[in-house]
Structure formats: C-alpha cells, structure tokens
C-alpha cells in the first residue's frame, strides 16, 4: 500500500471512484435500452452489441490511432445491430425477446471471431479530465480523474429526460410505447419508430462497449463485459424507464461493483471475492424487492411485450 495511505477512508473513496469509473457502460447501455423500451420493444441483445462495440472501437483505434474514431465506428456497428433486431421484429409473429437472445449470442460470437487478432496490440485510450488536481492524495486524484464519456453520459441522461417531455420526437416515442393503436390512429407508423429507437439504443450500447475497451479496463479480451449489458436491462426496469433514474442506478451498480476491489486494496484478504458478486446480488435483490405478482410495474410502457 501507498505511503499516503488513507486507511479505511479508502473504501468509500474507492466506491465513489468505482461508481464513476464502472458506471459509464451501464449508463450508456441503460439509456439506449430506455429509448428502445420506451418505444414498446425490448432488446436483450445489447450485451452482444456492447461486446461487439468494444471490439470494433478497439480495432479501429489500433488501426487509425484515434480512440474517437473507434467510438464513432462502434456507434455505427451498434446502430447496425439495432437495425437488424428492429427489422426482424417487424416481421409477423416474431418475439423480440427471443430475437434479442439470438442477437446477443451472434454479437458475442462475431466479436470473439473477428477480435482474435486484436487481443495483443495496444490501442490509444480515451482522454479523461483530472478534476482531482487540487488534492495531494493520489487516491483522490485517481478517483476524480473523470472520463469524458462519463460526463457525456450524464448530460445525455438529463437531455433525454427533457426531450421525452418537450419534443415532438419524445412524445411520439412515448405514444408508440404506450399504445400501438393510439399511435396508428394518429398516423404514426409504430414499426418505423421502433426500428429507429432500437437502432439508437444499439448505438448507445456500443458506446458503452467502446468505453470498456478504450478506457476501463482499457483492453480488448473476451471476458470484457461479463454480463454488464444484461444487468443494464434489469437496471432500466429498476429505474422505471426514467433516464435520470438510469443514471443514478448506474452509479449505484458501479459503486457496488467497486466494493470487492476496494476491500481487497485495504487489506481484507478473506471473503472479499464475495463482494465481487455484489452487482449481481444487487440486481437480484432489486428485482425481487420492486416486483409484485399482483400488479404490473408502475411506469412500464403499455406496449412492451412483457406487459401482454
């Protein structure tokens, strides 16, 4: 441990740092899924999109030397994944959940297959802003070294909340998600709105992937996501389809994910690995605590296939 050790204070600090560092993929995936689900469709394939986005961003960054080109490339392939999902779901008698699972496996497999040769080379990282410059403690500086994408995600969450209430597109999205019939009666084409919403959701999820491979942990390998894309879907339900709620829930999940490493770093040597499971346990506990067999989840878009 460091000379300037701050003892047990390191745990809350590490949780704060983890909340900021680990939450970014959750933020992007859950905001993307919020847009998709608000349109009345579920895309469970975002785990695959996330991993494929991570691979694409890393590969492009290695080849071009620009991490931002990597992010842009990831968005394009993410949108393409979303379009495929959305397009298949337009066909009659297709179940969006089943397609989502298929797309998840497809995305994972394709990413592992195409990404084999990029496990070794190192890619340039995304930039971060040192908000901790005022502090003499390295831990504080490390914790407040905040990536640009985290800030973008936070801004996006608030922008999305505003847009859902104050723009034509936002209202259209909510109409389609709540009642397919009402949307048709207004001359809105629900299939088209859902296609676009799924594509945007895919693009956002891929940005989350780009963050994984280009910043934290900052390398491409096959175990890079470990189910974060799926947890983000659960998080959307927990956040009641509210973008700002997604942001806060992502922070909570990020903090929980940092618990294990934080305990390890302050010298807890036994049992800390149990805390590595904290995000997964948290997912389970939250889903049980906020669900009821006798009533639907409040705020759930009426046209979601889960509701029917």
């Amino acid at each position, binding site marked *: 441990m460091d000379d300037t050790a701050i003892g047990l204070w390191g745990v809350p600090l590490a949780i704060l740092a983890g909340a900021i560092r680990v939450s970014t993929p959750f933020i992007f995936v859950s905001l993307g899924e919020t847009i998709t689900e608000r349109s009345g469709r579920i895309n469970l394939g975002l785990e695959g999109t996330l991993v494929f986005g991570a691979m694409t961003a890393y590969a492009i960054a290695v080849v071009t030397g620009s991490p931002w080109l990597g992010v842009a490339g990831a968005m394009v392939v993410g949108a393409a994944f979303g379009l495929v999902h959305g397009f298949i779901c337009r066909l009659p008698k297709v179940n969006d959940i089943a397609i989502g699972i298929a797309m998840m496996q497809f995305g994972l497999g394709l990413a592992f297959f195409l990404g084999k040769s990029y496990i070794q080379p190192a890619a340039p990282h995304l930039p971060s802003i040192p908000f901790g410059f005022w502090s003499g403690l390295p831990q504080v500086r490390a914790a407040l070294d905040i990536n640009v994408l985290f800030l973008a995600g936070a801004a996006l969450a608030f922008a999305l909340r505003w847009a859902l209430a*104050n*723009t*034509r*597109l936002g*209202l*259209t999205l*909510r*109409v389609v998600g*709540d*009642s397919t*019939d*009402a949307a048709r*009666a*207004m*001359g809105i084409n629900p299939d088209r709105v859902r296609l676009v919403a799924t594509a945007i959701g895919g693009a956002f999820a891929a940005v989350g992937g780009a963050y994984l491979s280009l910043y934290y942990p900052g390398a491409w390998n096959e175990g890079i996501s470990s189910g974060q894309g799926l947890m983000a879907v659960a998080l959307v339900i927990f956040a009641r389809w509210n973008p700002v709620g997604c942001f806060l829930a992502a922070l909570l999940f990020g903090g929980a994910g940092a618990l294990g490493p934080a305990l390890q770093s302050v010298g807890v040597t036994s049992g800390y690995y149990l805390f590595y499971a904290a995000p997964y346990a948290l997912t389970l506990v939250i889903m049980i605590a906020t669900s*009821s067999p*006798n*009533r639907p989840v*409040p*705020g759930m*878009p*009426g046209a979601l296939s889960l509701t029917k």
Partner: protein
Amino acid sequence: MAVIRDRPLPAAGQAVSVETLGMTMRFGSFTALDDVSLRFPAGGFHALLGENGAGKSTLVKCIMGFYRPTSGSLMVGGREVEVASPRDAALYGLGMVYQHFTLVPSLTGAENLVISRAEVPAVIDWAQERRALADFMDRMPFDIPLDRPVRDLAAGQKQKLEIVKQLYLGRSFLVLDEPTSVLTPAEADEMLGLVRGMTERGELTVLMISHKFHEVRKFADTVAILRRGRLVGGGRVDGIPTAEMAAMMIGDVKLAELDDRVPTDAGAKPVLRISRAVAPDRSGLKAVEIADLDVRAGEIVGIAGISGNGQKELAEMLAGQRPLASGGILVGGRSYAASRGETVEHRVRFIPEEPLQNACAPKMSVAENLYFRAFDRAGGRHSFRLSKSAMRRYAGRLVADFKVRTSSLDSPIAALSGGNVQRAVLARELTGDVDLLIVANPCFGLDFSAVAEIRARIMRARNAGAAVLLISEDLDELLELSDRILVMSEGRIVYETKAQAADVAVIGAHMAGHH
C-alpha cells in the same frame, strides 16, 4: 388561439352536413352494407341504431375513410368528396370518438392533445401551449384537468377528453360510437347534454351509434335504423315509438322471455357469505374491501358500479384468482378457496366477463371446452382416461340444448362469434345442479336475441334455487334481473337497495362516489 385545422373547409366550430348516397360495402360474397342513403343535416344530433353486425360500424368506417365502399358516394357540406383514408376524413372536418379510448394512458391530457395535431413543432414550448389550451378550454363546455396522466382520469372525463380532442382538431362532424357505455347515467346525461348544446348552437353535427333507446329519445333529433346491412327505417325521433324502433332493429326474431320470478324462500340460508374480505386491487396501491355480502338460495344479488371500482377484483377473489389479505369467503357455511374440489362439492359455477379469454382455452375445440367441468369425473367417478366418444355425446347435447351455433364440435372455440362463445360457456356452467352462480357482465356486446336468452337462463337458474351473484356494468340488466342491488364504489359496497323499489338516480349517485 386559432383553432388548429388542416384546411379551411368547412370552417372549424361550424357544423357541416354529411350525406351518403347508395353506400354499399361487400366483403367477398358478403354484403355488409347494402345501398344505404342517409342525410345528416348540419347542426343535427342524429342517431344510428342497429344490432351487432347490422352494418353500423361498416357505414361509419366508410364515412371515416377506413374502408373504401364498393359503390356509393359521400357528400360533405353539399359537395361530393373522395375520402380514401382517415387523414382525408380529417381534411373535411370528419372525426370519430371510438367506443374504446384512443388516448395514450401515460401521457397527460395536454400532451395527448398536442401530439394528436397534424403539425407538432419539433420542440414544444409548453408555456405557450398551456396558454393556448387554456384559451381553448374556456370555450369548451367541458371541464377536464389537462395536467394529469390520462390513466388517472375517471371514465367520464376520458370520454369528454376524447370529444374535446376531436374539437381541438377542428372537427365539424363527429361520430360517437356508443359513447356512454362506460359512463354512469348522470355522467352520460351531462356529457350528451353538453354535446347536444353544441349542435343546437350550430357548432357541430353529431352522429351517435347507440343501443340505448332512452338516450336516443332524449337527445337525438333523427334516427336511422339498420338491419343486416340495409336501412330499414328512420325519421324524426318523436315520430317513431320505441317499440317500433326495437321491432325494426331485430326484425321478426322471437326473443326469449323471462320466467316469472319465484318468490325467494324467506328462510333461505345464505349460500355465499363474504365477511371483511380484503385484497389489493390491480394497481396494488389500494385495497378492495367487502365488509359483508350474503347471497341466499333463490335470489339474484346484483353488483352495480362503474368499471374499475373493484368489481373485477371481487370476481377474481371469488374465482380464487386473487388471494385475500384478510377476511374470508364462506360457501355453504364452510371456508372456500375456489379449488376444483370445492367447486364440485359446493356446486359453484362461474361465468367471468370476456369468457373467451377468461373461461375458455381459445384454441381447443368446442367439445373440449364444453367438457372442462366433466372430463375427469365421467359417471360420477374419477376417471383417468379421456373418453372421446363420451365427450362428443356430452358436448353435442349441450350444443343442442343451448343452441350454440358452431360449424362443428371440433372447430376451435375462438372461431365462434361472441354470442355463441357466451352460450357455450353458459351451457357448460349451467348444466347439472348449481347452488351458486357467479356471473360477470354476461351480455356485454351481444345482440338482442342472445341477451334475452342469456338473461332468461340466469333467471331460470335462480328459480331452480341457485344463489346468483350478478356483477354488471349495465344498470338496466341489474334492474331487470336482480332481487337486491348493491353498489360498489372505490372498492367498497356503499349502498344496498331492493331492486323493485330502486331509484336509478340514487344508485347513479352512489356509483359516482357521492355517498
């Protein structure tokens, strides 16, 4: 605010006349609408009467551009127009208020109004929109809160908001499709009175589809009656007696008649007794609490109330679909949880609303569905093997007894019409001895002959000594069938009266929550 309208023809807030000329609609070899010519003069309140399948909705859908009529034409404001889509209909100021709500439940009233416009700005300036909406609402006879999500509004408010939406969009001719089916009598009177006022001021022409004669009589100027796609009569409402309207609607079909009411045995014991039963409602936020409810052998107890006041939950509690938080249900003096064994022992039968979804396996055959009560107890004993021949005999007997119209015993029950599904479920539930019958909205959406027959069957079950709990949103039905009527409001029973001495106004007031 300038009223939003798509094109300045005819002027918004100005009634317009509509006329159909020889309107005919064929689907394959079936003629749904046969040469119907009708005139709806500007500023009139017109009514359209007819049974299910008489062609009312086909006619209206042709006017509104959902269907292209096979032949015939449409005149709006004295000029022939081509209406190829609902969008075209909107151009000419034609609008429709549907039987089911088309508002988006999670959006507020204001959001619903703004997003339904043809032109919505990319970024909505809510301060300005709110001012414009307040100005608009000042000119409307309706008072509706616009800042709450629509799902929190009462049914009457939703229905008014649907009408307001059409007026906000600048419609001059409105079709109202059974607009009062979800309203209390007082709400219905108020709403139709306000709409009538608008027609009298020449702001609106109204065509109302209805099956309630008293509404047609009270509010409409003219009436047109359709039967099997043909126009069979019509004219000024005051020139046609109600009996004649009914006769024109149903033709020469003989309706089943209600048996006389056998007096209930004064000493009859309660078959069903609910005491202090509490269960959460659908939202899970409020509780449905039935303090005390007895149904004795040989009586029909009617439960009145506006949809969504706990009647559905009550039916689910009795069907074992909704666990009780506390309290109890006794049948025949013993605790009852609606297990299959208990229903057999106490001879309880259940006819839920929307029987195709709630009491049938839609894709299984008519014969299989009819055999659900009997398949495991052939000849009074438990049986392991399903006897197909016994099933067919049993089902064939029921189909004949209850006049279920089906092409074959093997066709899926989902292929039957609504009335025949209801007859099939009735056949299954009323065959054999019945001590307790629970029925919910048995006649919803059925035509006259089916309604008359189903009511006659329920009365016959009562006279045979069954205790009947009848949950219905149709007050006329409750008044006709019940011995006692209880009113439910906000999850509680708030009023009880003998059906014979019942005062509709008092019942309506309790339904609306004024108690």
